[in-house]
């Protein structure tokens, strides 16, 4: 949602046309602007300005039309017909039609594309059939209750087939879509220039106005240093920043001179997964002890300056089906000690670290310096300190992305925090189904808790193909109860996604899909 920081009244003057918006991103610079390639959040942030999806979500989480005006599904859940708008062209002039959708899906499923996020989302889609110009028929291998949610994601956005045909190198530099802006130029390590698409006539059903964007263009800059980014915003060098740090949010709120957009990401919450696949966390008592010992609430309060709410769910609070149970996570050092004693970790060394049979109670905790903001790393330090009181030796290992994946793949961890963004509760299947324990050839696997429970597997599989909303909600609730009750994860807060922008900028909102900002309706007041 859009909350004005401080008391600045939301002046809703008339929209002004013109001006170039400067956006400063603290996320890594994508190595490819085509979200079909790879598929990560930095890509999602920018591609939303020039690519569009078949469907979108509204504020309440309902699926609404976008490039597709309507859709139907057969009773067996295996065939979906999407009816496309017939008045839309890509910015290169290629018409948007069923053939284009087919090409996009094939592009995503082609291993040469190197898609990961978009590819996974279409895991059950076998093929696309061109029924006629405006109707594309998806053939599924199994019912997929998450298909529509998946299709809202920017990683499954629709690009011009002619653009795709240019080959990966060219398409990476400037993918061609139907969005409000067009990629004009990309100066690596500096910025991407976007210019207005004057012929823009689409937008998700909940868009504020019709026709082309107000802004002449966007200069999309990459400013990795958070202090510099904030300083640039304060100095008026840039109009919007993402990844605003908690203390600056607090300061901005107090000064009232900047506007905040708090848009938690969908999918999983930020949580610490406990590796149940090996000792000591293969013992539920030890997992519970860790969770009871770790004191996080005070830390979240102080480190995040009240900008982050404690979560007791493995799902993001924006997910309607999120289930939380705070009682499971009450801090209780005595209980933790009792549990550890009971589990046989009774010996203690001079530092108070427990051990069992000479094996110390060590928790290796690799931290990805790319994925955890400083406040979060500080929170981990506090967890380290409080867990120590119960006798845990938490070893924080800050690693760069390659090293971090390396540590996970080598199973050299007991605890880890890994965000996962995806629209809809189906993310649970990716994160906790036992299939996700088996690493991909690259070594990647998503079930970092190594939760291996046939009952849970069954629930998740069933939920994924259940088309009745109520039944689906109930299945997901049961699944979440198993995950939370088994103390496989320590939820912390939603995946933080705060934007700050100058009050000059109006009409900006975060998409209800993956919480990326959209500037299709934004303008710069003078």
């Amino acid at each position: 949602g859009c909350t004005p920081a401080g008391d600045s009244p939301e002046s809703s003057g008339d929209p002004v046309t013109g001006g170039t918006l400067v956006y400063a991103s603290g996320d890594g610079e994508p190595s490819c602007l085509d979200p079909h390639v790879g598929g990560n959040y930095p890509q999602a942030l920018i591609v939303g300005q020039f690519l569009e999806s078949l469907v979108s979500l509204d504020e309440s989480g309902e699926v609404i039309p976008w490039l597709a005006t309507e859709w139907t599904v057969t009773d067996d859940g295996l065939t979906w017909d999407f009816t496309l708008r017939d008045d839309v062209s890509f910015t290169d002039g290629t018409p948007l039609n069923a053939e284009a959708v087919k090409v996009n899906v094939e592009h995503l499923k082609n291993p040469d594309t190197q898609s990961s996020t978009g590819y996974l989302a279409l895991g059950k889609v076998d093929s696309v059939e061109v029924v006629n110009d405006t109707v594309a028929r998806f053939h599924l291998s199994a019912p997929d209750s998450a298909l529509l949610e998946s299709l809202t994601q920017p990683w499954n956005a629709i690009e011009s087939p002619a653009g795709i045909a240019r080959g990966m190198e060219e398409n990476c530099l400037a993918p061609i879509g139907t969005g409000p802006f067009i990629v004009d130029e990309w100066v690596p390590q500096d910025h991407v220039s976007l210019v207005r698409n004057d012929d823009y006539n689409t937008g998700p059903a909940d868009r504020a106005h019709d026709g082309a964007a107000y802004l002449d263009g966007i200069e999309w800059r990459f400013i990795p240093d958070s202090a510099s980014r904030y300083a640039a915003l304060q100095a008026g060098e840039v109009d919007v920043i993402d990844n605003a740090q908690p203390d600056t949010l607090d300061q901005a709120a107090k000064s009232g001179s900047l506007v905040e957009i708090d848009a938690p990401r969908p999918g999983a919450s930020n949580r610490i997964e406990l590796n149940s696949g090996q000792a000591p966390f293969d013992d539920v008592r030890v997992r519970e002890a860790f969770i009871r010992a770790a004191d996080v609430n005070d830390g979240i309060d102080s480190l995040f300056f009240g900008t982050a709410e404690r979560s007791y769910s493995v799902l993001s609070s924006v997910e309607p089906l999120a289930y939380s149970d705070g009682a499971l996570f009450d801090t209780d050092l005595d209980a933790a000690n009792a549990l550890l004693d009971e589990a046989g970790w009774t010996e203690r060394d001079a530092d108070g670290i427990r051990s069992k049979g000479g094996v110390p109670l060590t928790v290796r905790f690799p931290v990805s310096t790319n994925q955890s903001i400083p406040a979060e790393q500080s929170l981990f330090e506090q967890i380290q300190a409080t867990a120590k009181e119960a006798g845990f030796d938490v070893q924080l290992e800050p690693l760069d992305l390659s090293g971090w994946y390396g540590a996970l793949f080598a199973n050299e961890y007991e605890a880890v925090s890994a965000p996962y963004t995806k629209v809809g509760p189906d993310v649970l299947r990716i994160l906790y189904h036992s299939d996700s324990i088996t690493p991909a050839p690259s070594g990647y696997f998503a079930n970092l808790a190594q939760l291996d429970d046939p009952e849970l597997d069954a629930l998740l599989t069933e939920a994924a193909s259940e088309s009745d909303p109520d039944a689906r909600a109930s299945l997901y609730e049961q699944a979440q109860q198993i995950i939370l009750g088994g103390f496989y994860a320590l939820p912390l807060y939603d995946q933080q996604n705060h934007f700050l922008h100058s009050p000059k900028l109006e009409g900006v909102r975060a998409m209800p899909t993956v919480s990326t900002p959209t500037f299709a309706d934004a303008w710069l007041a003078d």
Partner: protein
Amino acid sequence: MPRSRTLRRVALRLAGAVFVLWAVATLTFFAVHLVPGDPAQAILGGPGSQASQEALDRVRADYGLDQPLAVQYLAMLARLATLDLGDSYALKTPVAELIGGQLLGTLTLALLALAVAWGFAIGLALWSTSAGRIGRAIAAGIELTAAALPHFWLATVLIAVFSTSLGWLPPVANDSASGLVLPVLTLAVPLAGFLAQLMREQMLEALEQPFTTSALARGETAAGIRLRHALRHAALPAVNLSGWAIGYLISGAVVVETIFARPGLGRTLLRATELRDVPVVIGVVLVVAVVYVAMTVLTDLVSRAVDPRIALEERA
């Protein structure tokens, strides 16, 4: 100097430069290959990508990554010999193009910083050698402090003062000249501290030489002596230091480019190592080595021009 000797020196220098470049490329190649992390994966979208086994296999075959390391190494040398730096794994674009776009930014930054540092250092040295006891102590304090400032700290303070508080200068670099001021200052100030220390010492030493009295005896003024005599002597070691300074500045550029969000080699390198983008890493290292070698040749020429004694000594 006889022609043949000059030729011999030039030839030796060239051979030395080629050796340095070869060694740098070799070291980097093997170092990067010791690093855990699969280049094939780097090609397929970097760490955490979910590339399939066939995709990995194909990429390995395409890029020759399934070959023994020695073969890959020779292939790289063969490539480098034709001045081909290869393609970036992550961006799929030619490394030469990628670096070409970044080199100018870093060089501008480094050379401007060098020039500014020289300016500061000369000013400070001239002033401190003419000032009294207190002035000299102040100058020494300024130099010491300047030389002790970590770049990232200085950058933070400069942004806080000149952008956030005073609002004079943009905090992150942009295309305008004013955007260059803070990054250049950040790099220049500590270097100026070093240079000024060196120059002041050298100037004082030069002022102790008999030729100073000799010049006074001709009617030269104190200021004239500092400007026309002592400064040259002070400049000489500072020129020699400038070769090293370029390396120092490029190191500093990594930090400065990150903080001021400037495109440049430093950030490219940082990113490339993170992504295990081997061709880019080797490319950047080589380019920096070329810059360094060029700079040493340049400083060598300059100091020879300034001081004929160097050439004489070499002959002896």
